[in-house]
């Protein structure tokens, strides 16, 4: 079992949110970030799949449908490693609260559903320490699907899991794919100490649960430093 940043003696703490597309996790982590910033704490927010160099390769791969499950997995691991080594680790060394919208568990779920051996994927990411807190936003599958499907003219090829040939219909493919991802996430939940949040509840109810857990698990006063952010 990989160690958390606290267990490795880092002064910083990493909080990750995971969940299906449309589970509302990004809204929740944004609200958590605002709450921490308004207290004048040192906070940094990071998203999955955002570094420039790798983005250029993935977009090319997506365009040309060149990616196989293995190269899909490796290119995202490369992207993550870049962010991990250049951004997350230095900030955690400097005593920041780092908030991650998705972490290695996204890869564990996604790459496994695509057919990569689970042990291989886990070993691939073994260079990364685990979050000090991981929230999993669990919504009814149908609710998440509706949030994504409404108001989106077209699902992207990989997002819909079209490469898995589950169904020629993108919407149907997306449903099956998300269903499989959910199974993978739930199977990991105990092993990686996910805090399950009922994402069918109102935004405010979820956010108060999240803040309560963060406040009880992390000594927030120790992260003061930056000047308080201006109120919105």
């Amino acid at each position, binding site marked *: 079992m990989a160690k958390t940043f606290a267990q490795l003696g880092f002064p910083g703490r990493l909080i990750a949110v995971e969940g299906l597309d449309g589970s509302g996790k990004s809204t929740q982590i944004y609200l958590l970030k605002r709450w921490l910033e308004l207290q004048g704490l040192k906070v940094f927010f990071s998203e999955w799949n955002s570094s420039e160099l790798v983005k*250029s390769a993935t977009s*090319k791969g997506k365009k040309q449908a060149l990616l*196989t499950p293995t190269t899909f997995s490796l290119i995202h691991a490369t992207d993550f*490693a870049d962010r991990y080594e*250049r951004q997350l680790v230095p900030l955690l060394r400097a005593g920041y609260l780092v908030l991650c919208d998705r972490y290695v568990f996204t890869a564990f779920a996604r790459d496994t559903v695509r057919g990569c051996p689970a042990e291989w994927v886990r070993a*691939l990411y073994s260079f990364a320490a685990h979050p000090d807190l991981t929230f999993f936003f669990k919504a009814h599958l149908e609710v998440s699907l509706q949030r994504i499907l409404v108001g989106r003219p077209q699902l992207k090829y990989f997002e819909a899991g079209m490469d898995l040939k589950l169904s020629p219909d993108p919407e149907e493919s997306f449903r099956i794919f998300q269903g499989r991802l959910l199974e993978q996430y739930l199977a990991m939940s105990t092993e990686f100490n996910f805090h399950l949040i009922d994402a069918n509840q109102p935004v405010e109810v979820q956010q108060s649960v999240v803040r309560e857990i963060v406040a009880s698990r992390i000594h927030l006063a120790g992260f003061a430093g930056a000047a308080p952010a201006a109120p919105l």
Partner: protein
Amino acid sequence: MKRHPAPARRRAAAPATRIIVPVPVTHRFYGHGLPDVELDKLSGKLIVVEGADGSGRSSQIARLVGWLEGRGHATTQVGLKRSTLVREELDQAQNGNILSHTTMSLFYATDFADQLENVIIPALRAGFMVLADRYIYTLMARDLVRGADEDWLKSLYGIALVPDAVFYLKVSPDVLVQRNFAKKHALDYWESGMDLGLSRDMFDSFLKYQRLMIEQFDRLRRAYDFDIVDGDRSPEAINADLRRKIEAVLQGR
């Protein structure tokens, strides 16, 4: 058929008319491998030539290609940093020296996997002789010199096919340095391991780095069985050696 030997006519025939059909051997992966590959359908042979820049790798491969084609075998070549997927990005990253070690390792692994799935395996399936100008061992040795975890690398490259033959052209660092100067009058930043800060002097750094690489290759040889070929000899002598060994591979030995 042997009733009327006609030595005169036989002498006039084109050389090497007898084409050897390679004996198929079921391939295997080093570790977890890749999903959905039918290993018993890979009837070609994977031949790897490893060695530092200036070890004579490329010219040995060129000679082997000519020889194999003359004997009726179809060939394909692969090498590091030749994937459609990330070649350009890797070049960019190397020029800027902006990526950290794990990222660089994974980037190279992506490049390797792309060629493995899109070139090597399809070619082997079609019965080609695939000549690889370096393979996972160079990538692993480079990472090991830079402090990577060996178990992590082993699992990562568990996707790789076990080649039918691996030749490591071992050349002493002093000979390497001379050959590099003879060829380009300059030493390469990465081949000199300048990112490691072994020495501020490039010449010194090159010698130190190549010694470290040789150490790692010697270590890797214990886990990954490969032939160490004395690369300090003449190109002809080395090539004769390689041909003899490849001949055995073609006959399934």
